[in-house]
């Protein structure tokens, strides 16, 4: 293939991405009609309200997660169906991943509030939708990847025995997705908490709305200087996260291991290392609960099965006309949906163009400089992350126990949304150094480093045992092993982790460069700050659009020019299978 052909492909791909992006934004501007009218309730910061607030936050996360789960299964399996589907659907997710979540905020609020005619329901839906956007994309990609990497043999079995449709879904496709779904669900919840806390306070122009929940509780408590309440709120959040880890994610991960496509004999390494007795006992809670569930659900499941066996199977041939009719209906529905979508896009595109045709505000001139400032901040935060994470990775490469401990600590600490601590961090740093730049870099750091750490730890755990044995058996010292084995082997994970980390960093910009605390606005020169100022202070929709578009453009360009290339290089040189 000549290089010019490849470049045309690349260009077409990028152009396509921008088109999709414009479509998504246009969709929202299609509903940028009525200004929102929000009713403000009073907000109590007494600790007695904590369980209620915790419950509110939790149910919001759960609702968003369920939506994300359904979406990711449908979308991921759909994209895996064939090349055409893949060509269209995966770039969409690629873009969606790059769009900073909070960029959707004003649009989401307008959309949902105008549907619900003002009031709390609209804002709740907006928050749930926002959390959904921070959770769904990586899960959908996980489903897609799992479906694509099902071994050809397994697919052939189903073809050969004429099994398809529901049976194939139940026995082949869904089980294959389980490991990646569980892993990505854990990541999604982490991301969700991070943004939920920030999303519970919505400011749209003059309207200032607080959803009852842990995020707004912490923010209010910090605002009023009630340190006791802050601690109580943080402990509640931590309790929820730890409880979820023990009761949901641990048993799920164990269960998901069953679905792995691994044929190598498991080494002693993969057994859970011996832990302190109490912790060991706690780890049993999860599987016990799972067993309990199975016991409870067994009788009704048995009844359902018996019933199903009684019903005679439907033979398609007997109802061929009915099936044809149903297929036509399905085609019709899809066509109607596509027409509605197209109308919305066109409508929105018109509104978009009309909005952009308005005179650009003076602040727009600051965009290039602000972009550079933001990129500089991201680079510094990235460098700081690498500075502490790479030594940890190297240390973890020689000891499975350390790796396990690091992973557990990282899971818990990384799950606690740093956004809950933002008020404290900002105040502390500013009081100590007087500079918001350092504070914003630290805040960005919290949104970047965990992705890097998780990916690197995963990469370290995948270093083949025989390579480690070879290095040891030939007397390679620690430094030589790090240089010749560990660092090259984790390079692909480093790149993947960096891509995700930078994605998290871009998202964190919006929360880190502009901060309102105790009616004092802290901000620095940056793209995130420009977007926030436009959203929360001036309400200038043109400025919002321009900053959003600039951010997305920079992200896409960086992804294609830098990260894609690095990733291809890394996979080419450092791939482990040979």
């Amino acid at each position, binding site marked *: 293939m000549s290089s010019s052909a490849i470049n045309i492909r690349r260009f077409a791909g990028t152009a396509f991405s921008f088109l999709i992006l414009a479509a998504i934004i246009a969709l929202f501007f299609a509903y940028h009609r009525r200004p929102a009218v929000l009713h403000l309730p009073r907000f109590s910061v007494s600790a007695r309200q904590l369980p209620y607030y915790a419950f509110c936050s939790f149910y919001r996360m759960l609702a968003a997660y369920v939506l994300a789960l359904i979406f990711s299964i449908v979308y991921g399996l759909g994209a895996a169906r064939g090349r055409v589907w893949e060509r269209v659907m995966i770039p969409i997710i690629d873009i969606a991943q790059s769009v900073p979540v909070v960029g959707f905020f004003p649009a989401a609020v307008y959309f949902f509030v105008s549907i619900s005619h003002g009031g709390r329901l609209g804002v709740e839906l907006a928050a749930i939708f926002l959390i959904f956007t921070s959770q769904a994309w990586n899960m959908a990609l996980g489903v897609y990847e799992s479906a694509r990497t099902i071994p050809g043999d397994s697919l052939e079995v189903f073809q050969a025995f004429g099994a398809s449709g529901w049976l194939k879904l139940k026995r082949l496709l869904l089980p294959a997705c389980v490991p990646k779904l569980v892993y990505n669900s854990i990541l999604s919840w982490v991301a969700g908490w991070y943004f939920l806390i920030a999303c519970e306070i919505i400011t749209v122009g003059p309207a200032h709305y607080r959803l009852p929940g842990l995020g707004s509780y912490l923010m209010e408590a910090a605002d009023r200087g009630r340190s006791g309440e802050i601690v109580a709120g943080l402990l509640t959040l931590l309790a929820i996260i730890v409880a979820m880890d023990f009761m949901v994610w641990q048993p799920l991960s164990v269960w998901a291991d069953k679905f792995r496509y691994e044929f190598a004999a498991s080494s*002693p390494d993969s*057994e859970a290392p*011996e832990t302190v007795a109490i912790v060991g006992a706690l780890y049993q809670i999860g599987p016990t609960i799972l067993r309990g569930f199975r016991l409870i659900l067994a009788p009704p499941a048995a009844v359902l099965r018996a019933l199903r066996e009684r019903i005679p199977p439907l033979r398609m041939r007997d109802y061929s006309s009915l099936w044809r009719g149903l297929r036509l209906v399905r085609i019709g529905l899809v066509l109607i949906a596509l027409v509605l979508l197209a109308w919305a896009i066109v409508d929105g595109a018109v509104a978009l163009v009309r909005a952009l045709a308005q005179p650009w505000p003076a602040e727009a001139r600051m965009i290039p400089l602000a972009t550079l400032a933001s990129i500089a901040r991201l680079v510094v935060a990235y460098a700081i992350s690498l500075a502490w994470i790479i030594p940890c990775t190297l240390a973890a490469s020689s000891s499975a126990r350390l790796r396990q401990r690091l992973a557990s600590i990282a899971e818990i600490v990384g799950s606690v949304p740093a956004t809950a601590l933002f008020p404290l961090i900002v105040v502390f740093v500013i009081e100590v150094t007087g500079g918001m730049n350092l504070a914003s870099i630290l805040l960005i750091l919290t949104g970047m480093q965990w992705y890097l750490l998780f990916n690197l730890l995963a990469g370290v755990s995948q270093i*083949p045992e*025989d*390579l480690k*044995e*070879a290095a*040891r*058996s*030939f*007397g*390679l*010292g620690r430094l*030589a092993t790090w240089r*010749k*084995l560990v660092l*090259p082997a984790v390079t692909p994970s480093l790149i993947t982790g960096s891509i995700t980390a930078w994605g998290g960093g871009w998202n964190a910009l919006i929360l880190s460069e502009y901060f309102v605390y105790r009616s004092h606005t802290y901000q620095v020169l940056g793209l995130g700050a420009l977007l926030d100022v436009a959203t929360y202070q001036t309400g200038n929709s043109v400025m919002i659009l321009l900053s959003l578009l600039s951010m997305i453009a920079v992200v896409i360009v960086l992804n294609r020019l830098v990260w894609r290339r690095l990733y291809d290089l890394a996979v080419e*040189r*450092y*791939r*482990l*299978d*040979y």
Partner: protein
Amino acid sequence: MPLLELTHISKHYPHAKGSLRVIEDISFSVNEGEFVAIVGPSGCGKSTLLRIINGIVPLSSGQVLYRGRQVDGINLECALVFQSFALMPWLTVDDNIEMPLEALGIPPAERRRRASLYIDKVGLDGFEEAYPRELSGGMKQRVGLARALAVEPKVLLMDEPFSALDALTAISLREETLDIWQAPDSPVHTILLVTHIIEEAIELADRVLVISAGPGRLLADLRIELPRPRDRRSDGFNAFTDKVFSLIEERS
């Protein structure tokens, strides 16, 4: 004095429900110049035995004496050849072979000399700058062999070296191994080969140690008194094969 002496070696791994005994009280010795094969079914601990001799796996009880003395840590005079080749995918053939030499502190000029010498000896002349993924299975194992030979060890420890290769490649590599063992200018004259293929053991070795299924115990130490080159179709050969087979069968 024997080159290697193992007395009452046992190995067990701690397990959730007690301990997993992999090797149970194995004792034998290896003299310089011998080709010893260790045969047994899968999971009998024979690979673990090799790793204990090399030192990357610590033993639970017993003693390994090399030249009459206990070795702390890794025994750098016993080089391992791996079943899965264990080559670093991002290093060229040359770099892979030089890697242990660098660890030994050998200066660059000498490293290069040895690398070329042993690449030549295994017949991979011209492939110095190739990457492992560009090589076939047999060539990869030749690199593994060259890497082990380059450190000029006293004992070559081979862990099922031909199991990952197709039958025809395995045949030629077996012959090459014998050539290396018998060549007067070869650096190593003592080989310990682990395999689950009985015919391979009898074809190559002077002595065959038969290990039972897990936990591995030494069932027999047979001296193969057959003329070289060994004829697979001779009666003597078949007698030995039957003997080893029945020994393993009895204990399973």
